[in-house]
């Protein structure tokens, strides 16, 4: 695809020159430091100091739950960054006119679109892996807790970012930047709430409400991948306790009883590829 690497490089350069990467990296580092301070204070909580083995378990359980909450924050930041980087990348440049001069070159539109997506995908993946690695290091150093599947957790978060990125990019080929951003964020939020409501349905034995979560996870795989991240971060004791608690535990939004099946991961990949294909067709058919 001629031009794809040129567009990729120039998009990355734009991220650097416009200080997007600096803001993302710098503020995330601040977030990690603040949470590290919080973790470090955990052993000083009343009843925590001089803990026996049981108390150490408690500490690790609390640390794991806090880690999941912090990761939820990172997944939200990741989705937000992906949406607000992707939404103006096509629509914004079409509005200002920057895109016209580029598309008048012997470059297929799919090269422009996919070049931009790939550049932002690199940012999303590097950010997801970097921010989570720092957070895992912080929690390990301060509390001694290490999640059972850290790499998988990071990859699930990166996957969530890539799904959001593809969605925002597709919307950006047809609707103005602000609208594309708002639609993508709303869908991200609806998918998460759909998962929570589905969990409540499963907990209280209502199959119709329970199905809602399944449907939203298929329509937009962000929540399904987030559940994978939760499972990767939970200590074994939490999973066992959850299983012993019965079906009602499904109502708890920060608990996952199992990782997403392989077929779901395959579906997520197909979903991203399909959304990019839709974005390409939509962009190629658009009159400028």
């Amino acid at each position, binding site marked *: 695809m*001629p*031009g794809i690497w*040129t567009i990729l490089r*120039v998009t990355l*350069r*734009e991220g650097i*020159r*416009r200080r997007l990467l600096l803001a993302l990296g710098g503020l995330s580092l601040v977030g990690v430091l603040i949470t590290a301070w919080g973790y470090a204070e955990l052993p000083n909580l009343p009843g925590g100091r001089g803990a026996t083995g049981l108390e150490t378990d408690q500490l690790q359980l609390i640390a794991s739950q806090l880690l999941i909450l912090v990761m939820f924050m990172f997944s939200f930041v990741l989705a937000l960054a992906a949406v607000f980087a992707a939404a103006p990348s096509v629509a914004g440049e079409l509005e*200002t*006119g*920057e895109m*016209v*001069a*580029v*598309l*008048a*070159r*012997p*470059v*297929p539109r799919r090269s422009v679109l996919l070049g931009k997506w790939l550049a932002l995908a690199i940012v999303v993946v590097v950010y997801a892996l970097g921010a989570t690695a720092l957070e895992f290091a912080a929690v390990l150093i301060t509390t001694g807790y290490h999640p059972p599947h850290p790499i998988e957790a990071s990859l699930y978060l990166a996957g969530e970012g890539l799904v959001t990125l593809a969605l925002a990019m597709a919307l950006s080929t047809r609707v103005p930047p602000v609208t594309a951003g708002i639609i993508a964020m709303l869908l991200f939020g609806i998918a998460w709430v759909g998962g929570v409501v589905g969990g409540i349905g499963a907990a209280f034995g209502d199959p119709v409400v329970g199905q809602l979560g399944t449907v939203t996870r298929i329509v937009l795989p962000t929540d399904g991948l987030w559940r994978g991240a939760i499972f990767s971060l939970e200590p074994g004791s939490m999973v066992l306790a959850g299983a012993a608690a019965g079906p009602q535990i499904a109502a708890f939004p920060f608990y996952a009883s199992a990782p997403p099946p392989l077929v779901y991961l395959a579906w997520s990949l197909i979903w991203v590829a399909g959304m990019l294909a839709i974005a390409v067709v939509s962009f190629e*058919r658009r*009159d*400028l």
Partner: protein
Amino acid sequence: MAATSPVVEFHALTKRYGRTTALDDLDLQVDRGEVFGLLGANGAGKTTAVKVLLGLTRPTSGGGSLLGMPFGDPESRRRVGYLPELFRYQGWLTGGEVLRLHAELSGLAPERWAEEIDTVLATADLRTRADDRVSTYSKGMQQRLGLAVALLGRPEVVVLDEPSTALDPLGRHELRGTIRGLRELGTTVILNSHQLTEVEQVCDRVAIIHLGRLLAVGALSDLLVAGGIRLRAIGLSPAAEDELARAGEGGLERDGPWLIVRGATEEQIPELVEMIVRSGGRVYGVELMHPTLEDRFRQLLGSA
């Protein structure tokens, strides 16, 4: 490809946006090496025609070719330079970096980049600002950068869509010189403009478009309406008006209080004044009119 083969051809090209017809059954051809003017009022369809030929917009029906390839084929744009009407370049890049980006995208051999970029920077008078970010450029400088982008790599066809809207008088003069220089190099130039004097001064052939329809096309000399003599006179009898109408080759026209004896020459001025005075009329003013495209343009738009 033969030296005289058309560089651009539109065949029965129609473009509609909803219920608005931007181009209506356009048949047009631009030959190699000519400076071709697309002339029309705002909203006439000039920019749509250019966007269709560059593959930026798809026609509703009909089609055409650019350098022998169908519209929309990315390869057809390899030897084309384009300055859009809405010129905007990446503000976070320097002027030199914008040109480098376009050199890369146009498929220019990397060993030619430095020389080509330096040449077009000189043409656009931007050499001293090449290392400054585009966001610091004035509007006129951004339009000159757009011209530099369009000329990069010595393209066979240069499409300039309203290229002087942000330029000062000196910049416009230099632009006309650049276009004439391109003609001398054998480059085909398509100039979209609603500035008649600009088109008059540089174009070999002109097409006049109105509401998406082609009203006239031809060599500039064929389209220019003959000049004439403008007279401000009162008290003319119908017989004297008939006599005046016969004096010029193009008949008699009225323009407010003025009469225009179309086709009359400077040598006829005393004779025309005498004619009016003899018939009992009084003359308050006389002007010699040069042949202009504007008159032709107004005539065509008036009849359309």
